[in-house]
């Protein structure tokens, strides 16, 4: 089934107000910023953003008023520091209050894993002694029923997001995709989510993907939409394709110190450009400078059966 659609159509169809959305499953790499921007443009409200570490994406969406809840371990700007919109939302309720469901990276990964594999919960040794157990009421402290000695175990309820937007190096139009480099919680998010939007840097023939099924992290039949968005992860990096735009992150971090500065930034980079190609054109030479031109190819692997 051909699932290739434009990013605006994919967001319009699959991301609804109030949905829980995984954006940034690969931690600092492969963040689908083009999708975050499009969600902002379409004015989605009350989203529950799920990501272990979102770099600046979650902060932007909070500032733009799209977010009702954050289920994550870290919100800010990885190379910059504090997330200014995150602070304003939590400390001052600006542009609106948000609910935080505190996690650590591992507890979030285990929660998505539990969702992916239909586990009733994930039992964890982490978070013991941490006040995360107090500030997030979803966790439950129990004793290990298999242990004779007292052994505390934290139960993490599964996360089954409504949508996961996942950026990959390449995909075919049927939803089969290759991702390489670190994968963060990509596999778990894809298998746990009700709907998966694949954002492919390159659109390829299905034979390319089938040539290497071990590089597939989730089966194509779980994918609802495929969007071909070259450079859609900008300003985050993607190995073999794009370097991180450190200057862009720093600029965002500086401008977002004030609500007015953030509003200006948002107008310039998100609300101004009507879509990703317009954003891309605005980046211009800066974007080309980030393109990885070197080649460091994986050693060949033979899948022949005879």
């Amino acid at each position, binding site marked *: 089934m051909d699932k290739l659609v434009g990013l605006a159509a994919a967001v319009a169809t699959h991301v609804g107000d109030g949905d829980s959305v995984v954006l940034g499953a690969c*931690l600092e790499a492969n963040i689908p910023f083009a999708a975050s921007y499009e969600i902002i443009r379409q004015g989605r409200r009350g989203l529950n953003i799920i990501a*272990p570490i979102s770099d600046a994406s979650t902060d932007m969406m909070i500032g733009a008023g799209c977010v009702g809840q954050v289920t994550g371990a*870290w919100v800010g700007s990885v190379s910059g520091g504090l997330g200014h919109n995150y602070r304003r939302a939590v400390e001052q309720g600006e542009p609106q209050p948000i609910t935080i469901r505190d*996690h650590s990276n*591992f507890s979030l990964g285990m929660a998505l894993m539990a969702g992916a594999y239909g586990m009733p919960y994930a039992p964890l040794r982490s978070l013991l002694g941490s*006040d995360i157990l107090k*500030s997030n009421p979803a966790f439950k402290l129990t004793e290990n029923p298999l242990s004779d000695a007292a052994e*505390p175990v934290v139960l993490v309820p599964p996360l089954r997001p409504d949508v996961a937007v996942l950026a990959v190096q390449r995909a075919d139009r049927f939803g089969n995709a290759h991702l390489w480099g670190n*994968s963060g919680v990509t596999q778990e998010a894809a298998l746990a989510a009700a709907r998966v939007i694949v954002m492919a840097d390159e659109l390829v023939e299905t034979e390319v993907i089938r040539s290497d099924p071990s590089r597939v992290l989730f089966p194509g039949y779980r994918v609802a939409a495929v969007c071909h968005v070259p450079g859609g992860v900008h300003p985050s990096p993607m190995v073999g394709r794009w370097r991180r735009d450190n200057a862009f992150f720093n600029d965002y971090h500086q401008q977002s110190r004030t609500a007015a500065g953030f509003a200006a930034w948002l107008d310039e980079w998100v609300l101004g450009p009507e879509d990703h190609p317009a954003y891309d054109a605005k980046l211009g030479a800066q974007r080309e400078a980030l393109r990885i031109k070197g080649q460091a190819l994986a050693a060949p692997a033979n899948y022949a059966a005879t």
Partner: protein
Amino acid sequence: MRRLEVPDFSTQELMIIAAAREICDGEVVFVGMRLPITAFGVARLTHAPNAVGLFECGLARDLPATETLYTMSDPANQQGALWASGLVPVMGQLQGGRVDAGFIGGAEIDRYGNINSSYIGDHEAPKVKLPGSGGAADIAAMAGRLIAIMNHDKRRLVDRVGYVTSPGFLAGGDARRRAGLDGGPSAVITDRAILRPHGDRHELHLASVHPGHDVAEVVANTGWPLQRLTDAGETPAPTAAEVAALREVDRDGFWR
């Protein structure tokens, strides 16, 4: 960047080298970003050629990256990695007791090594919302031992943190064990000194003072009545080999 009287290394370089000394050969270490990852490179080039670094984004790596990293997921940290996998398999090594040590930072640390990187003030109405745990709570709970990196002032080294993101020895004594955790902090490396837990209470004590600093200054900048280990002295200055290794790792002079 502030210079020490000894002109051959900056304070940050001394911190990096002190951190490198905390890594033993052959160890598996969560090295995180910034200062610790540079320390890891120094350790590999000096006394710990077989150490391996883990990154919660899903990487294991032994060789230093070929260029300065801004995040652990930068392409330069991926190319030539030993293992590119997911968060759960890599952080699962922590929970499985397969990680010898981990490095983390934070906004505040207290006398029992508890670290806050979540909330200043009441978490339901905080004065400051900090970015949160990331992987720090996991590393602090489950690494064989924890090395914390902090700037040394009274707002950061406090008597008790208001929110424990990453558990140290909790209320001290056997509180950590009773909570179900092994391990715990083994060193806090600041820009003025090194602190280490002492005795049954596991209270952080002064272990050494960096060259160019003195005990009174360190005590004055610590938020609890800081006690000294009996053998507390000066942090050994970097050796020529350590400085050479650091300059090799820190090609761009980021830390000079």
